[in-house]
């Protein structure tokens, strides 16, 4: 019997698990996929928003500003890459200027610090590659960039370090009321729990529906991205937004914490919650928009493109409520969901206290976690010590990102354990560089096979039927 069961191991579920693991609670995290961070968490803009976008008084506004303030210390505790690089919302004409002034006023109301409207002259100094058509911009120095999937992975890992359990490939099919709480079942397995926290992203409406809460819907909004080589990471220093419209914040141009340049997202409302296809129209839109805001973006340095689905709730705000005692929804967590995640977690802890659940602090709680890049971030002397102790750190497997065998094996052995190539990629960055795993993929397949004790041809890209190899060649020998 668990005290808390969290459905969904994205960044929201992860932060909730981590925050609640500060208390003496038996926690279980259920994830339908083969790994954590598989939904919107792995494919988004990776932005820490300052908090001037959301409507005054909304949960989005409250939790965004709070989350933005928390992010730096959370990332530092969890060993997650984060950078306060500031953001600019650029305007092209007087209409935009009026909107930017509204945003400025709203930001001040929301409690965003240090906002200012900059004119062309100052902007050119700050961002020399901004398009000449930009006449002004709202500058938010408190905005930042973060690695979203590492945040989720490390939050869940930290929760696990502090006693939480994770069950992947647990696709919830029904939830029944029991004497002391709930029984959550998949087709194969059940868990009993006192409290359910629904962080199921796109499927959070379906999960709520299982206890008869049909008060909201969540629909997918497609967001496509193009990622450029690290050579292009310094094209801009800040995150560059366009002046927002009804469909969101438009196509942005931003460096990532790892030094790449990210363009996107598009914004198309769709029906199918599993349709993560990119589209030719989407690419055209990204490219066209990018050229309008920033000059000198080297599109021939594209290394990959991808698509994520935002979970858009039917209320216009985050849906964080308790339809009945012991069941909490955290749904419709679209942008600024990533930024808000640490604050959402605290908000939910407070909700539990308000509902009368006793949360007793766990004196053994350890808030910190080693970074997946501890080796890469170390000095040359430290690295040499580490290579002496474990020669696998001396063997570079991913040449593009400079990732060693030691780091990859560490990542495979650590909680939450990856079970596939993409899981290793998100944790270590191996296969994430300019060759996209062309060189190191076959060797990482071997490492996964060895470490997980599965056959070479059983290794998948991301679980299920996503097999990398189908069979031995004629006369091939099992590895």
């Amino acid at each position, binding site marked *: 019997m668990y005290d808390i069961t969290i459905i969904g191991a994205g960044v929201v579920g992860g932060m909730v698990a981590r925050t609640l693991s500060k208390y003496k609670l038996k926690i279980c995290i259920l994830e339908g996929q083969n790994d954590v961070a598989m939904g919107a968490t792995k494919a988004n803009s990776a932005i820490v928003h300052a908090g001037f976008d959301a409507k005054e008084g909304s949960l989005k506004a409250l939790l965004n500003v709070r989350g933005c303030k928390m992010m730096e210390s959370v990332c530092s505790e969890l060993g997650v890459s984060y950078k306060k690089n500031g953001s600019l919302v650029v305007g092209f004409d007087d209409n935009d200027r009026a909107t930017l002034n509204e945003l400025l006023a709203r930001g001040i109301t929301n409690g965003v610090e240090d906002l200012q409207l900059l004119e062309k002259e100052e902007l050119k100094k700050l961002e020399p590659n901004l398009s000449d058509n930009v006449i002004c911009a709202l500058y938010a120095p408190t905005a930042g960039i973060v690695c979203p999937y590492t945040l989720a992975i490390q939050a869940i890992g930290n929760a696990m370090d502090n006693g939480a359990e994770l069950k992947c490939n647990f696709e919830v099919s029904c939830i029944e009321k029991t004497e002391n709480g709930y029984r959550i079942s998949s087709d194969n397995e059940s868990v009993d729990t006192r409290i359910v926290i629904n962080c199921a992203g796109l499927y959070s409406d379906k999960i709520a529906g299982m206890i008869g809460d049909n008060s909201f819907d969540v629909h997918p909004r497609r967001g496509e991205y193009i990622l450029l080589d690290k050579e292009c990471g310094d094209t801009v220093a800040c995150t560059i937004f366009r002046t927002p419209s009804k469909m969101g914040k438009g196509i942005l141009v931003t460096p990532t914490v790892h030094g790449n340049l990210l363009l996107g997202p598009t914004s198309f409302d769709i029906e199918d919650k599993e349709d993560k*296809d990119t589209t030719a129209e989407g690419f055209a839109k990204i490219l066209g928009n990018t050229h309008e805001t920033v000059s000198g973006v080297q599109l021939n340095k594209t290394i990959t493109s991808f698509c994520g689905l935002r979970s858009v709730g039917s209320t216009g705000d985050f849906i964080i409520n308790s339809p009945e005692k012991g069941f909490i929804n955290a749904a419709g967590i679209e942008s600024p969901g990533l930024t808000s995640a640490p604050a959402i977690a605290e908000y939910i802890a407070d909700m539990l206290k308000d509902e009368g659940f006793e949360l007793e602090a766990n004196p053994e709680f350890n808030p910190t976690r080693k970074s997946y890049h501890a080796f890469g971030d170390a000095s040359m002397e430290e*690295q040499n010590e580490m290579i002496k102790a474990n020669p*696998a750190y*001396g063997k570079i497997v991913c040449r593009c990102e400079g990732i060693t065998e030691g780091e990859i094996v560490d990542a495979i052995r650590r909680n939450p354990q990856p079970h596939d190539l993409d899981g290793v990629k998100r944790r270590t960055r191996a296969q994430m560089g300019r060759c996209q795993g062309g060189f190191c993929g076959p060797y990482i397949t071997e490492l996964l096979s060895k470490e997980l004790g599965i056959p070479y041809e059983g290794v998948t890209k991301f679980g299920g*039927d996503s097999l990398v190899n*189908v069979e*031995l060649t004629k006369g091939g020998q099992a590895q």
Partner: protein
Amino acid sequence: MRDLVIIGGGPAGMSAAIAAYENGVKDILILERDESLGGILQQCIHNGFGLHKFGEELTGPEYAWKYEAKVRELGIECKLNTMVLDVSEDKVVTATNSEDGIFQIQAKAVILAMGCRERSKGALNIAGSRPAGIYSAGTAQKFVNMKGYLPGKNVVILGSGDIGLIMARRMTLEGAKVHAVCELMPYSGGLARNIEQCLNDFNIPLKLSHTIVKIHGKQRVEGVTIAKVDENRRPIKETEEYIACDTILFSVGLIPENELSKSANVELSGITSGAVVDQDRQTSVEGIFSCGNVLHVHDLVDYVSEEAEIAGKAAVEYINGNKDESVSIPVKTDGKIRYTVPQIITKKKDVSVYFRVSNIYKNVTVKVTDGENVLLSKKRVKVAPGEMESVTLKKEMLENAKELYFSLEEK
């Protein structure tokens, strides 16, 4: 302090090492990131290597072994499993491996021979899903030839580069069905002999002016939508066609891996993506040489070896401090000739200039001029982007040369 550090133990690195050794510099260190010498030749188990160099048809490993055996015989030191992290302009090489940890070596001369990598599917912005079953042709080659696993049974290949053509045959021999090789351009970028032996002999259709417009499949590839492209390489909607398959291979170009050249401040060419070099394959940084596929992508390894010998010999000259009278004659092209190697001539001696054209041309004349003077004029029945060409300039031609201009004259 080492006389010569060579980065990369593939065909270029080994050939450069042997040439340097035989010309008198014995203090040589080859740094190789893989666990054995040979580079990409190790997985190229098909034949066709060595026709020019040795007058016989060798497989990739056989060709590599000829050089590896020599490297061993001469006792040239190699560090395997060693990744070079940085090369500085003053020729300090920083590398790492399991035994030595991270170490630095000051070299008198450095030869860059890191080879190239394949352009990945990711670079192409193809619409659709991102399931398992998508590989660059070279990765598939590694799975099949080195690991002994077949990555799929029903294959569509995009791009008719040589590795793609070779893999079309290889996958077929392993029992897979290759449904089509699509090529965006109206001509193949591969060698004519590979089209014949790898596609035609196996009835694999080559669809020129075709591309993949969409990838289908949630977990594993389930199919592709292909389409014909117009003269601006834009897909024509009406020609879309669905092909069911479980695997897509990409053979869409090779990119010289010049990250280390950049760290050493070596000037790179926007056209070759490799270093700008003189006839000795010396880069813009004195004492740093570049050869093989890191300099420009070759179609035949024989030419890689040849080029590396030039670099190896020249490195010896440099280390020994031999300085001939130096000139500076830039080599320019007309665009029909896309690039030349070398791009600059600094010594008046016989120089072989290698070049590639930007399209298929028939019955043309390759002209080398210096201002008004026509230095050389060679007829060619057919030239194609997939096949490297060369001409030799005699020392006498360079006597009063200011700037060489390579052009292609059509009738």
